[in-house]
C-alpha cells in the first residue's frame, strides 16, 4: 500500500528513528511501512494518523 509517511516525516524534519520512537516501534518497522513492504495493522495505522493529526486515508493511499 502506498503512503505519504516519508513526505510527512520530512515536513517535520524527523528521521525514521524519530518516528519509530514516537510510535514505540523499531526503525525497521517504520522503514518497512514507508517502503510499502509492510501494511500496518489498524491500531498502528490509527496511532500514525493521530501522531500526524491526519485521517488514515490522508496518509495511506489505495493502490
Amino acid at each position, binding site marked *: 500500500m502506498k503512503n505519504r509517511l516519508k513526505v510527512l516525516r520530512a515536513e517535520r524534519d524527523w*528521521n*525514521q*528513528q524519530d518516528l*519509530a520512537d514516537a510510535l*514505540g*516501534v*523499531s*526503525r*525497521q*518497522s*517504520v*522503514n*518497512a*511501512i514507508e517502503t510499502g*513492504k*509492510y501494511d*500496518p*495493522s489498524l491500531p*498502528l495505522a490509527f496511532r500514525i494518523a493521530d501522531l500526524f493529526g491526519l485521517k488514515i486515508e490522508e496518509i495511506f493511499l489505495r493502490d
Partner: protein
Amino acid sequence: MNVSDNRSGSALHPAIWALAFTLGMAITGYLERYAGVGRTGAIVLMALSSLFLIPMIRSVQARADAKGVNSPALKIYNRRFMIWTFGYMIALTIAITAYQKLELTGALLWLAAALPALPVFGMIWTMGRYVREEADEYLRLRAIYAALAATGLLLAIATAWGFLEMFGAVPHVPSWAAFPIWAIGLGAGQCWQGFRA
C-alpha cells in the same frame, strides 16, 4: 541520534563468535578422543568454549540496534535463550557423565535420558513467549514468518531423510536433531528477511 552512531564500538560479527564457539567445541571433542584430555578436562574446555556465546549474543544485540530491529522483547528473548543454552550444556554433561559413571536403570535412567530435553523445552517456551511479548507487530510478523520457514525446512528435510534412510542411502539421525535443524531454519529465515528488508 544518528543510527550509525550505534555501530561505534560494536563487537565483531556474530558469525566470528559462532565460529569460535563451534571450533572450540570441535577441538574439545578432538582432544578428548585423540589427546587423552579426559572427561573433566573436556568439560572445562567445553565450558570455556561456551563463553564465546556471551560476546556472540552481545554482537547480535549491537547489530540489531544498528539495523533498528531490536526491541525490549528481543533483548529478553536473547537473555532467556542464552540461559537455557547454558542449562542445556550443563544438563547434557550431567546426563552423559551419570550414564557413563553410574549403572543407571529404571527411573534414574529415564531421568538422566530426559534431562537434556528439559532446557530445550525452555528454549521452545522462550520462543513462544517472545511472540506473545513482542509489542512491535512488524518484528512479531518477521519472527512468525521465520518460524514457518523453519518448520517447512524441518518437514522437508525430515521427510526426504526418512525415505533416504529407509532405502539405506543415508545413516540414521537421532530425532533430537529436529530442534537444531529447526533453529538453523529460524536463523536462515530471519537472515533472508533481513536481506530482503
